[in-house]
């Protein structure tokens, strides 16, 4: 049913239709509206047979989810930013135990300096924890990916993060086709655990494993991700058969025919990028774009194939690996290891900095003219950073960076 609805509310409704049996809630901006929404469904009786547990931290949220999932319940939680890092130990643990928990990440920057706005640093910090990571381009896709995520998680017995851009998606009101309970029931079978705590058949789960078998356990976790590379497109196809929408999958190519310059990105920024691509195409530029939906597993073959005709690749990403450059760009380079295609990194949108069409276009044009430095920081205030660098050179007690820059910007000196 088409609705004009907030992204978080639509995600909450979709999660409710997936009939989670245990939901753990802890507030953190910008995810909070989602767990509030699910809580309201439980309290109103719309979502039956669901234990909604208000916990005392994100570490507890995922820990409760681990216990519930190991005992055979379909389990959901959501977090963001500092919350994801606070539960980091449990994030790895859930994957190691092979528990099919679904968790929404309302992507947000990591402090210090504390910042509530959107970037991808949080999800990137957990990219190698063993979870599947799916990035939504739109709120429609956010809704659809959650429904697919439960099926994917439970078929593989592997946890899944659905990553949606904080505020840009979570707080945006837009037209969304929210599915019905009957449609979701037709797509998502009841959860049948591969392993569970059961007095009739007692297992020890989470026993200590030494060097003699640890590599094998880790290999099997990697193998699950490789299986997901096959399963993600299959599930997207089944989803299309039931819902009539093309959504999910590994990658979304856009205007790649004859594209010499290809822009690669994750998440909602792909909307803006497509607009820029359209405008540049109208003016005769040979440019296209590729949105990566599945960041873990990373679809090396699909990315390599999509980029096979490109003369240059520009990765626009909302995450920075300090001392290296781009996180996504490093992965894209691995996909292109056998192709002599230069990959450039554009760091953009950190801490919610708006990414404008004008800035993207001038950057892509510079790239097309082979005139873009790697790593490029979009709209960096070079004067502010030069002054701070000069200050740090002059005096050892140069003070806190963020406060110094704020003072300078505030006084205009």
């Amino acid at each position: 049913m088409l609705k004009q609805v907030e992204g978080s509310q639509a995600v909450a409704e979709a999660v409710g239709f997936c009939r989670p049996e245990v939901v753990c809630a802890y507030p953190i901006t910008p995810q909070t509206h989602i767990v509030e929404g699910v809580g309201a469904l439980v309290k109103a009786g719309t979502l039956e047979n669901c234990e909604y547990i208000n916990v005392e931290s994100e570490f507890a949220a995922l820990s409760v989810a681990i216990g519930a999932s190991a005992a055979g319940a379909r389990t959901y939680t959501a977090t963001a930013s500092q919350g994801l890092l606070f539960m980091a130990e449990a994030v790895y643990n859930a994957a190691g135990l092979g528990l099919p928990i679904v968790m929404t990440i309302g992507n947000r920057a990591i402090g210090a300096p504390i910042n509530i706005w959107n970037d991808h640093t949080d999800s990137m910090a957990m990219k190698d924890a063993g979870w599947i990571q799916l990035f939504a381009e739109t709120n429609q896709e956010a809704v659809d990916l959650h429904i697919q995520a439960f099926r994917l998680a439970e078929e593989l017995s592997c946890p899944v993060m659905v990553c949606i851009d904080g505020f840009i998606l979570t707080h945006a009101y837009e037209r969304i086709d929210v599915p019905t309970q009957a449609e979701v029931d037709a797509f998502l079978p009841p959860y049948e655990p591969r392993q569970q705590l059961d007095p009739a058949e007692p297992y020890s789960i989470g026993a200590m494993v030494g060097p003699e078998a640890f590599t094998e356990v880790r290999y099997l976790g990697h193998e699950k991700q490789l299986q997901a590379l096959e399963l993600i497109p299959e599930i997207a196809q089944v989803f299309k058969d039931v819902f009539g929408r093309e959504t999910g999958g590994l990658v979304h190519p856009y205007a790649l025919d004859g594209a010499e310059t290809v822009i690669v990105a994750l998440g909602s920024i792909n909307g803006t990028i497509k607009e820029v691509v359209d405008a540049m195409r109208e003016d005769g530029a040979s440019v296209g774009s590729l949105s990566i939906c599945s960041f873990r597993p990373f679809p090396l073959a699909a990315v390599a194939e999509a980029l096979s005709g490109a003369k240059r690749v520009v990765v626009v990403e909302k995450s920075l690996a300090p001392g290296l450059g781009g996180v996504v760009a490093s992965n894209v380079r691995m996909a292109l290891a056998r192709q002599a295609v230069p990959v450039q990194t554009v760091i953009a949108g950190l801490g919610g900095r708006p990414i404008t069409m004008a800035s993207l276009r001038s950057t892509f044009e510079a790239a097309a003219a082979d005139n873009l430095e790697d790593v490029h920081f979009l709209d960096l205030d070079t004067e502010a950073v030069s002054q701070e660098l000069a200050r740090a050179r002059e005096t050892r007690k140069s003070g806190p960076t963020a406060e110094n820059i704020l003072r300078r910007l505030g006084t205009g000196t």
Partner: protein
Amino acid sequence: MSGSSPSEQTVKFYQTGTHTVGNRLLDDAKRTVQASMERANAITSGHRACQGCGEALGARYALDAAMRATEGQMVAVNATGCLEVFTTPYPETSWQIPWLHSLFGNAPAVATGVAAAFRVKGREDVRVVAQGGDGGTTDIGFGCLSGMFERNDDVLYVCYDNEAYMNTGVQRSSATPPAARTATTPAVGDAPGNVFGTGKNLPLIAMAHNIPYVATASVADLHDLEAKVTKAMSMRGARYVHVMVPCPLGWGSASNDTIKVARMAVESGLFPLFEAEHGAVTASNKIRRRVPVTEYLKLQKRFQHLFKPTEDTERIARLQAMADANIKRFDLLDGEDAS
């Protein structure tokens, strides 16, 4: 007597000269779970605990009692620690019940999740016991434990308290007593061992959450431990049992003195045995034969700097004062020993 090596210790057959009543003299109902042909063996033999391990003993009695109370319909959740390590070296396990280990600091929350899953599936007959050592309970798992208590989740949490981080090699925890030597409170300097005036009393903190049941127990009185676990399992909501379990390795006590050391802790008043319901103390176990704290301290190398090279009378007096305060607070004396 104290300090005697195992080979010199007099073995007392039929427990003559003790207060212990042999099982065969008791009514069936009062006999220990372990004396039953149907005993559960929650933790079966062959595990890797040290000789004389108080935790292995305490855990087996606690969980076997819980198994009997639930007719085997239970799940155990374990924090990281000695108990987790010595019972599950890959590819073996000692657990005869469904058992889950996740992390060091999250056992109470994991147990909450297990209980929620069984409740939502209409299997409220399956009960959940979470367990951890003092480090996993009073330090790193404290936030999750307090959350579980506050929500009154249907979990019995058992803390096996050996008063330090033994699995990592005897470091101080917030349950380590004053003056005790650990690897991070070494017996050097003017005031060797752990400082006075710090630490947490978790049973009292548990009581402050107004949860249905809190009890302390000791491996010196296994009938009492079983009775308290059984009572806890007859209730719903958050319950807490804090069991003192001597660690021969960490305490520097003889491995065949584990029960004796535990008994001296109780009889000196340093470890009071009591029960509380909804925040109020309801009962305490009376001390049968009161001993000075030195009787307890002298059995353990972690306190030997209190006696050598000269007796540290001032700090021994402070420890005695702690025991005296417990005796008064929990009303641990009656009859001829009361004074």
